C-alpha cells in the first residue's frame, strides 16, 4: 500500500475500472490534453489538473474521448451512451457550468430509470470540480453539490481524501444510476488528503459516513475540504478538553442520516460546516434532519458555519474570509458548549 495524493487515487480508480470493464469510457473537455494541448502533444498535461494523465495512451482515443468546450453536447452524448449500454465517466470541468447540462442531467439522466419503468438504466458518472480557494473567482469556485443533491434520481459523492476517492469512484462507476462525483480542487494535492491507498480493487458503499474523529461533546458534520478544517479544530478542542466527533457523510445522496442522528444522540450538540451555501444548502438539510428527528437530544441550538450569501470574491484576502474558517468553527463549537462571547474570545485568544 502506498501513500497517494487524491489526484493519483482518482486516476488509479479510473484506470482500474477501465481495465475491469471495457464498457467504461471517458468523455470530457481536455481530458487527454490540457494546457491547450495540440495535436502531437496529447496527454502532456493529462487534463487541466492532470487527473486523467496516462489514460489516453493506455486506453486509446476510442475510450478516452476528448471534446470541445461544449457541455451541452458532450453531456448529452454521455447520457445517451449510458442509456444504451456503455458506462461513461464524463468530466464537467467545473460544477459551476452545470447549468449548461441542466436537461441532460436533471431531467434525462436522473429520470430515465423511472420514465421507462426500470427497463432502462443510466450508469453515468459525472466527475466535476467544486470549491473555492484557488483564486478562480465567482464562476469557478462554487460548491453546487447541494443543487444536485436536491434532484431525486441523482447520487452525489463528495470525497475528502485519497482512500475515499478511489473507493467511492469505483462504487460510482459500478452503480447503475447516475452519480455526480464532486472533487474539491484544493484537495488534489492537499497534504492531509494524502492517505494510504490499496493498489487493488476495493469499493466504499454509498450512504455510509466516515467518522474522522470520534468524540462525546460535539458532533461536527463536514464534507470534502471542510472535513480537514473540522479535524484541525477537533484537535485544538481536544487540548481544551472538548471532545469533538467529526463526521464526513461522504455522499450527500444517499445521506447517512442514521450516523448523524446517532452521533447527535450521544453528543447533544451539532455544528455543521458546509461550503455549499448560506441559504438552502446541504448544511440546512442536515440541520432540518436533526431538528426533526433528533431534537430531543439537543442540548444547544444547532450551529451552521457557511460562507456568506454572496458570490465567491476574486480578491485573495476576501476569498479567504469567505471560506468558512477554523476560527468560526471553533466559535460555533464553544457556543454550543454554552460559553458566552467574552469566554469564547478568551478561549480563542489562548489558542
Amino acid at each position, binding site marked *: 500500500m502506498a501513500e497517494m495524493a487524491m489526484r493519483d487515487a482518482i486516476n488509479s480508480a479510473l484506470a482500474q475500472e477501465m481495465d475491469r470493464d471495457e464498457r467504461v469510457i471517458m468523455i470530457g473537455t481536455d481530458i487527454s490534453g490540457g494546457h491547450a494541448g495540440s495535436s502531437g502533444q496529447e496527454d502532456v498535461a493529462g487534463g487541466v489538473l492532470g487527473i486523467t494523465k496516462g489514460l489516453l495512451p493506455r486506453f486509446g482515443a476510442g475510450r478516452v474521448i476528448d471534446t470541445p468546450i461544449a457541455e451541452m453536447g458532450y453531456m448529452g452524448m454521455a447520457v445517451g451512451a449510458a442509456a444504451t449500454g456503455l458506462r461513461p465517466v464524463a468530466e464537467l470541468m467545473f460544477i459551476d457550468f452545470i447549468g449548461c447540462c441542466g436537461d441532460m442531467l436533471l431531467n434525462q439522466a436522473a429520470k430515465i430509470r423511472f420514465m421507462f419503468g426500470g427497463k432502462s438504466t443510466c450508469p453515468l458518472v459525472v466527475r466535476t470540480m467544486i470549491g473555492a480557494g484557488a483564486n478562480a473567482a465567482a464562476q469557478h469556485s462554487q460548491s453546487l453539490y447541494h443543487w444536485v443533491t436536491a434532484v431525486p434520481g441523482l447520487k452525489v459523492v463528495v470525497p475528502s481524501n485519497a482512500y475515499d476517492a478511489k473507493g467511492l469512484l469505483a462504487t460510482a462507476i459500478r452503480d447503475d444510476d447516475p452519480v455526480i462525483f464532486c472533487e474539491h480542487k484544493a484537495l488534489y494535492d492537499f497534504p492531509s488528503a494524502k492517505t494510504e491507498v490499496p493498489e487493488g480493487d476495493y469499493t466504499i458503499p454509498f450512504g455510509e459516513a466516515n467518522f474522522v474523529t470520534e468524540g462525546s461533546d460535539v458532533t461536527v458534520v463536514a464534507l470534502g475540504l471542510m472535513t480537514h478544517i473540522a479535524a484541525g479544530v477537533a484537535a485544538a478542542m481536544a487540548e481544551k478538553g472538548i471532545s469533538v466527533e467529526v463526521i464526513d457523510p461522504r455522499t450527500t445522496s444517499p445521506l447517512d442520516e442514521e*450516523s448523524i442522528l*446517532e*452521533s447527535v*444522540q450521544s453528543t447533544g450538540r451539532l455544528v455543521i460546516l458546509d461550503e455549499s451555501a448560506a441559504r438552502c444548502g446541504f448544511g440546512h438539510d442536515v440541520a432540518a434532519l436533526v431538528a426533526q428527528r433528533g431534537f430531543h437530544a*439537543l442540548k444547544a441550538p444547532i450551529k451552521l458555519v457557511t460562507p456568506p450569501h454572496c458570490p465567491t470574491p476574486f480578491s485573495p484576502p476576501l476569498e479567504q474570509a469567505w471560506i468558512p474558517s477554523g476560527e*468560526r468553527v471553533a*466559535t460555533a463549537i464553544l*457556543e454550543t458548549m*454554552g460559553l458566552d462571547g467574552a469566554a469564547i474570545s478568551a478561549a480563542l485568544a489562548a489558542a
Partner: protein
Amino acid sequence: MARIQAITVPKWGLTMTEGTVSEWLVDEGDTINIGDPIMDMETSKIVNVVESIVAGTLRRKVAQPGDVLPVAALMGVVAEADVTDAEIDEFIDTFVIDESVSGAPTGAAAEGAAPAAPPEPTPATAAVHEPAPTAATPAAAPAPAPARTGTPSVPEALKSGDDDSAVHATVHARKLAATLGVNLNNVSGTGRNGRVSVADVEEAVTGAGGSLPARGPVERVPEVDAVPADDSGVAATSVARRLAKSLGVNLHSCRATGRHGKVCKYDVEAAHALQGGAPAPAAPTPELAAETAPEVEAVPMSGMRRTIAGRLQASKQTIPHYRVSMDIKLDALLALRKQVNDGDPGVNVSVNDCVVKAVAMALVKMPEVNVQFDEASQTIRRFRDADISVAVAIDDGLITPIVKAANSKTLTEISAEVRELATRAKAGTLKAEEFQGGSFSISNLGMFGVRQFDAIINPPQAAILAVAGGEQRPVVENGELTVATAMTVSLSSDHRVIDGAVAAQFLQVVKRFMETPSLMLA
C-alpha cells in the same frame, strides 16, 4: 444472522387473511435458500407456491396439510445445525403472530374475548394455538419503545457468538454493543446494505427480554450573552475592525453610523467608552466642527416618502402616460358658485368641489375612463360609481382621500366631504378604506397660482386630472377680444387602456359640465 427463523403464512394481497396448507415441498433437514419453493398453499382466491424468505435448514414443520392458518402464523422453523431441539421448542412456544403483518386482531381471537365471532374465524390449528399460554408475556406486546430501566440487562443469548468485527454496523451501534456486551452477530441490521444501527441493537436487547440503560434528561446549555463572539460578519471599516481588535471590542456591540451602515472608528471608540474603557479622544473643537460640518444634510426618507417614491417611479416607468390639455372658462361656474354660497351660510363650495362634481358626472357618462387596470391579470376593472381620489398635500407627502360615489352626491355634500377628508388627512385620522382604491384622481394646484401642470397616474387607476388655477385671460369670442376667467386642466391617461380620442372626449364632457354648470343639475 439470527440463529432461529420462522416460516410464516405469507400475505398475498390486501384481502388475504388466512391460507390452507396444501402440501409441503421440502422435508425437515433440507437446506433451503431464499426464494426456494417450500409449500403449496390455497387461499380463497388461488393456489400458489410459498417461497422461502429465509435461508437455512428446515428443522421443524409446524403446520400440516389441511391446516387453515391466519396470515403470519408460524408454519415452520429454520435454524442452524447447532440449535438444540429444546431451543426450537421454546421458539415455537413463544412465537407470536406479528399483527402488523397479519392485519387481523389475532390477539383478540386468541383470547376469545370478542363477543361476536368474526366471519370464518378458524384461527385454530393446534400448531398455532400451542403457544397460547404465553400470549400474555411482555414480549408479546408490539414493543412501542425499548424498555429503559435504570440498570441494563442483556440476555445471555445475545452476548455469545463469533468475532463480530466484520459485522456491518454504524460506529455508534458498535459502541453501544460493546457497552452492553452484545455480540453483533446476534443483531439483524435493518439499515442500508443490512447495516446494524443503534436502534437495531436496542431492539435486539428488548426483543430478547432485556432492558436498556435509562436515558437521563437532556441538560440544555443555558442562553448566553446575545452578542456572538464572531464579529467577522459585521460590516465595518478596516480601521474600525483593527481598532476593535486592539481594544477588545466586539463589533456587534457597536452602533453602525458609518456610510453604508458600516461600523466606523467613532462607533468602536464609543462602544469602548461605554464598556468603561479609556475615553474616546476629545471631540473636535467647535471651530473645526463648524468647518467640517457637511454642506448637505442627509435626511432619511420617511415611510410615506418611500411609498410615494416607489409608487410614482413605478407608475412613471411602466405606464405609458400621455396628456391632453384643455382650457375651461369659469365665469358661469363662478356665478353659480356665488349664488349657492350666498344662498346658504352652511355651504362653502369651492371651484375644486365643482371640478369633482363635473368629473364624477363625466365619468358616469364615459365609463371607459372610470377604470382601474389590473396589469397582472390583464383586465380592466370598470366601475359603476365614480370614486374620486382628491390629492391632499400633508407634511412630508401627500395622500389621496376618496370621495366615494361622487356621481350620486350633491355639490354641497361633495364640498362638505372634501373639506372633512382634507382636514382628517392632515390630522392622520383617515381610515385605510378612505384613501385606498378610487377610480380616478384629481390634483389641484390652483391655490398656488399654477397656470398648467401634468400629474402622474396613481396606479391601478388609469387617469388623473391636473387642475391649475383660474385666472382672467384675454379670449377671442366671435371675433371679439374679451376677458374671461379660465383655467387649464390636463388629463394624464394610461394609453394601454384609454386612447387619445377617449381622453379628449372625456375632457370635452368635463368642459361642457363646467362651462354650462346648470347641466350638472339637469
